């Protein structure tokens, strides 16, 4: 059965995009057909992890939302970015990185409710096992719609007071929207903080499971969101934690 997994955080900079791309990569390597869609239409970014430039992104989610193309026409096959050992398929559905397209979105808007149909269409047309939705931080129409259709919602946060407060709003929202499966993911945990204690504290605060506490990583920083971490550092402890997140996402 296919699954829609939505990654959300109340505040920016929590690592949603890197997590989306890397968890997707792990699942595709294992043999699943995976799509990752960037619905951060006003500030897209996930394409850089797949080493794509504006020239490579010929069609995008924007075209679908404007009624110009079918959503599957925006999918780019990025399976080759996973290396030779990939057993599945990996598709990226990017938002446009053309300044003129972003300006048009800001000026004219788009029919946001098309997203819901678009997710279903992608799962069917590309025969996906998993669709991962990478979102804009905070709350807006797109997030609300995506949360409402999520089979699993992953809420990311850093061990930081601003993130803690914002996450309580996100969790309340997910509860009101009756999202069945919600997990928390703590990211960028500094070396000074004991991950077990952080996990315990967060689980206690939100009465929800923490799937993993990902450490701050200099190696991740060194990649500057220009490559997939799990491919560059397959034996790194952080890759093992991404594997754990991937396990939980497809339960």
């Amino acid at each position, binding site marked *: 059965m296919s699954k829609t997994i939505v990654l959300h955080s109340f505040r920016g900079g929590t690592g949603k995009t890197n997590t989306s791309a890397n968890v997707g990569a792990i699942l595709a390597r294992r043999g699943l057909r995976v799509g990752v869609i960037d619905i951060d239409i006003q500030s897209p970014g996930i394409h850089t992890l797949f080493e794509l430039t504006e020239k490579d992104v010929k069609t995008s989610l924007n075209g679908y939302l*404007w*009624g*110009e193309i079918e959503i599957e026409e925006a999918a780019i096959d990025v399976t080759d970015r996973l290396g030779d050992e990939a057993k599945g398929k990996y598709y990226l559905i990017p938002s446009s990185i053309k300044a003129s397209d972003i300006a048009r979105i800001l*000026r*004219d808007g788009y*029919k*946001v*409710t098309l997203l*819901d149909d678009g997710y279903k269409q992608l799962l069917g047309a590309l025969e996906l096992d998993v669709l991962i939705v990478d979102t804009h931080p905070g709350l807006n*129409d797109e997030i*609300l*719609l995506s949360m*409402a259709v999520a089979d699993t919602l992953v809420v990311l946060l850093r061990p930081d007071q601003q993130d803690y407060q914002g996450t309580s709003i996100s969790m*309340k*929202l997910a509860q*009101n*929207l*009756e999202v069945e499966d919600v997990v928390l993911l703590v990211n960028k945990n500094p070396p000074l903080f004991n991950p077990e204690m952080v996990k315990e504290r967060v689980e206690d605060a939100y009465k929800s499971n923490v799937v993993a506490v990902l450490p701050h990583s200099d190696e991740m920083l060194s990649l500057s969101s220009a490559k997939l971490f799990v491919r560059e550092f397959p034996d790194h402890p952080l890759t093992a934690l991404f594997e754990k997140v991937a396990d939980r996402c497809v339960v």
Partner: protein
Amino acid sequence: MQLSQEEIVGYLRRVSAFKKLVDEQAEELAKISQVRQFARGDELFKQGDKNGGVYIVVSGKVIIERELDRNNSSVSLMVAKPVESLGEMSLFVDAPRSVTATALENTVTLWIDNDDFVSFISRYPDLLLELCKVLSQRLVEAYDKIAEVTLNRKPRELRKLYDKLDF
């Protein structure tokens, strides 16, 4: 791009307003159709223009926009894709074009002059009825757009979700 008479008939038959044309009518309509090509960014017609004619998109895409007086801005109304028609309103309204049509990519169209078209449909009332259906659908879409633009109202699906957020 050159299109044979047979190919033009083929495209015309796929246009929703022309689906009920019999062979003889389709061939007659093809004879008064001209192929017109546009590069990306070219305007097929501009709001305020007085040239009358109906376009049928063969390949490419055309965006229809209503230009607004304020801030040099505009509202996108629709994107016409292959076998969709545009500009039919000029057949019935003796007024300048109410919208601007611009090619979003290199586009090939069939163009039928208003006088030729009126002369053609006046002999086939059934076709007139089909055209009315197309224009009525456009009117419904325009009402939706007006509601969206003037009320800035969330779609029903979203309103239901927002209703759940009463913390």
